[in-house]
């Protein structure tokens, strides 16, 4: 079972936090920080598995992570999951994000937190893997999208606002997540605060 899914950037800012086991909010934050420190000190190109931090159960749990450009995707799982399988799952999740957002980047995760949650919900449910077929997940998202459209009522104006925000606030546009190759760290990225 997957205990938690944590996505944070190179500076430890959480971008997506999902716990499937109940922890008090305070502990959730600590787990994110602890996990960040555990993976941060690891070089790229070493193994993608390590034992969980003390807060999340120690050696009974494994942290399986992947580093894409500015983001770390970390899944905390128990022994009933296949390590390589989870690695594939992270890839499926990220590729799906990429398809849904068209060249996903960190900003998409920030401004469309709800959508990211919905995509994740199609992949993992209650800590169990629901669907691994990317096309199916994308189809679900498209269906949701149509529903949303049909419910309508929302003007297109915010879209322009978002892209304006994206362009104005940042001295440098963050790189898109490079999904083709693993563990490519992009040097000298601007810091998201």
């Amino acid at each position, binding site marked *: 079972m997957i205990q938690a899914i944590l996505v944070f950037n190179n500076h430890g800012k959480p971008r997506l936090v*999902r716990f499937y086991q109940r922890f008090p909010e305070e502990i959730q934050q600590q787990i994110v920080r602890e996990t960040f420190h555990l993976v941060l000190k690891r070089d790229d190109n070493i193994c993608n598995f390590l034992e969980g931090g003390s807060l999340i159960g120690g050696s009974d749990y494994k942290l399986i992570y992947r580093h894409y450009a500015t983001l770390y995707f970390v899944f905390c799982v128990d022994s009933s999951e296949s390590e390589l399988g989870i*690695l594939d799952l992270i890839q499926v999740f990220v590729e799906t994000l990429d398809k849904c957002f068209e060249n996903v980047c960190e900003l998409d995760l920030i401004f469309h937190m709800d959508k990211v949650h919905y995509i994740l919900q199609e992949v993992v449910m209650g800590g169990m893997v629901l669907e691994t077929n990317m096309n199916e997940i994308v189809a679900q998202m498209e269906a949701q999208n149509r529903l949303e459209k049909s419910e309508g009522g929302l003007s297109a104006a915010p879209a322009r606002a978002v892209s304006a925000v994206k362009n104005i606030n940042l001295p440098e546009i963050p790189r898109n997540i490079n999904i083709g190759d693993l563990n490519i760290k992009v040097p000298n990225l601007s810091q998201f605060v």
Partner: protein
Amino acid sequence: MPAVSKGDGMRGLAVFISDIRNCKSKEAEIKRINKELANIRSKFKGDKALDGYSKKKYVCKLLFIFLLGHDIDFGHMEAVNLLSSNKYTEKQIGYLFISVLVNSNSELIRLINNAIKNDLASRNPTFMCLALHCIANVGSREMGEAFAADIPRILVAGDSMDSVKQSAALCLLRLYKASPDLVPMGEWTARVVHLLNDQHMGVVTAAVSLITCLCKKNPDDFKTCISLAVSRLSRIVSSASTDLQDYTYYFVPAPWLSVKLLRLLQCYPPPEDAAVKGRLVECLETVLNKAQEPPKSKKVQHSNAKNAILFETISLIIHYDSEPNLLVRACNQLGQFLQHRETNLRYLALESMCTLASSEFSHEAVKTHIDTVINALKTERDVSVRQRAADLLYAMCDRSNAKQIVSEMLRYLETADYAIREEIVLKVAILAEKYAVDYSWYVDTILNLIRIAGDYVSEEVWYRVLQIVTNRDDVQGYAAKTVFEALQAPACHENMVKVGGYILGEFGNLIAGDPRSSPPVQFSLLHSKFHLCSVATRALLLSTYIKFINLFPETKATIQGVLRAGSQLRNADVELQQRAVEYLTLSSVASTDVLATVLEEMPPFPERESSILAKLKRKKGPGAGSALDDGRRDPSSNDINGGVEPTPSTVSTPSPSADLLGLRAAPPPVAPPAAAGAGNLLVDVFSDGPAAQPSLGPTPEEAFLSELEPPAPESPMALLADPAPAADPGAEDISPPIPEADELLNKFVCKNNGVLFENQLLQIGVKSEFRQNLGRMYLFYGNKTSVQFQNFSPTVIHPGELQTQLAVQTKRVAAQVDGGAQVQQVLNIECLRDFLTPPLLSVRFRYGGAPQALTLKLPVTVNKFFQPTEMTAQDFFQRWKQLSLPQQEAQKIFKANHPMDAEVTKAKLLGFGSALLDNVDPNPENFVGAGIIQTKALQVGCLLRLEPNAQAQMYRLTLRTSKETVSHHLCELLAQQF
């Protein structure tokens, strides 16, 4: 077009997020957030009813604030309101908020459950999925109580959409994991198994996950899944990479489902059906073959997916542990991975090989990779990989390679990561002890350990080396010499001082002949370390000093001077001060004889499980130890037919400590510890115990009899029992029964359960049941001390001709009984013919090295095989007359030893085994009973009559049976009960 319409975002939300991101400091961020929280709060509280869009926007903001690490203590109500919206997007965000920010104590749960109930009943698949997601994500007990019964119905309903089925399966799985008692098993389980045949691969995947979890508790209910899983797997494995279309991931067909299926199969033993098994073996071979084919893609995803299946296949092969051919292939494959350029694969290969090392078929094959593994330990850049390498070295260690492995681990320890040093230290200490052939090597290793990683050497480790040195006199001189040398290092670890202080205090005399290590030199060496040490070490050294006074009288003056110094006598620490004062006085007032007695060499330590091993087990959690301590997977651990449930410590083969310490013959006089805490170990025996204890209620006859099948001659328990007491103790070895044996036996004539025996060390409880001429008895041996009993061997002996009268089969029990633990022994008893003397129970064990022996009478008397018989007065008297020969009757008139209570008497007679017949005897004060003694050879009808005389406090007991000896024997037995 992107699948997510970015355009429909919420403007207010985007602005808020941008504001936060533009904050220059943490304070500014908090200020902005507080402002927003206040705003949202006032909006929620305001008079104006908010429309769905606004609610959605605010809830979204709250989620964002929560992600930043701020507590959110409101908004739940608004989220719940969104649940009942008809708009999908509003409902969706409501559910998201609830799942992420659930408040399990909230009274809102009722409202949430209501909304979920409506959505589940809506027949709108999208809404149903949302509701199922919410239940699964929250997974609380309340939700389980509300929905656990409905979800199986949704899961197997014919008209459920695939996506709903998929969600329902995982939802049920989540609820089952959270509260298994709430999920009702029923006819749906059979239909779930058939979901393995579903068209939709997503449904199959979800169903496999569910079954994998459910079948662990109820393996038989789901047994049919084996063949279905095998055929599904076979179809996937043999399909071309394009057959499964969407479920093909980087040219690998349905990797996720394959992995899940292989996991499911690991819940069961190899398939019994030869055809199924053949098909499965074919699959496994295909997977192994595919690993050798060139990759279809250079992408890492391709090899990941392929190898995920491969590793799971290897796990299954290791799980079956029955196909030597496959095991060796698996081992070779892992060997290839050990040198793979992908770190992940090296990591997983090391991990899998660890389990492979414990299979007898592949242990040797694993050992051939030792150089690669040692190399990994030295050169891997990643600590997690190095740790796996250390684990594997530990697992593959045996007598042939112990020296190499231990020295490599010691070398690694010098540079090892701090996080894993303690574990490595424990492992080195265990291996060194377990595979020590000469003990000088052992002592060297441990001292090296202290030198290299003194900080990580826990107390258990250095206690252990002292125990072993104390118990083995052939190594004492060497140990003294070695510690003496080690202590000469200018900076040595405090643990070294402790070990050195203790060993020199005990065995310093063995090296005192050498002028380089004469007593004064030894003392000044130790004392030079004294001032740098902690209180505990200084206390230990003070004890060493007083021992020196005894060993080397020439040091007395110097040492007394040290003890007398103000820094000792007036030490601020109570312990040190007390020791200094006491030792000083002892050395001045006691004669040399007294001193020699008080400070006599320490007696050998009692044998017990290695404290180090116990510590490692604690560190690694249960299970880790079992593979470690005997080096082989324990085949009985999954054996549900194993009968007596062995506790982990009793299953293990004689622990390493037994190897080391068991050789010593002279039993040391160790005073038994005070009986404090030796509470009644048997309390739980008579309450409703675990399933291993059969209920003593009325068992159906057949079931009872079938249980009496003779046990397999070589049960796993017997294999693992200590071989030492295997020699059948001849009758002459058996001490006579203890004096109270008869009295103890009498207590059990009319009852079947109770405490048979108890002293300071041991308590023996009995539970028994008898049907016809068969009986089963459970003996519970409780160790009341805190020290393990060794060579524990209870035996049943049939003196004289009893062998032809009574057959008793016993199961062996574990040779060690841990302190405070209880072991159970089952006896199957068959009465061949009537008998007079009970069998004897001889219990022998070693407590603290001292042999203990005890002989009791086993509470099996002929009346246990009584079958009560109801009959009318007329029948009774007719039979009474038929048994009128003088030798058929036995009569006894005796004084009452207990108060004469009719109810108690009745209970005793019933306990004795006969039926009580009312309205037979004209005198209502009298008791009349009838029954048949069942033996294999013959049946003996018995009639009895007991006439109490309350005034005289006397009884007259009359027995009539068809056999003279039986009449007299029963009469004797029964007369003692009143």
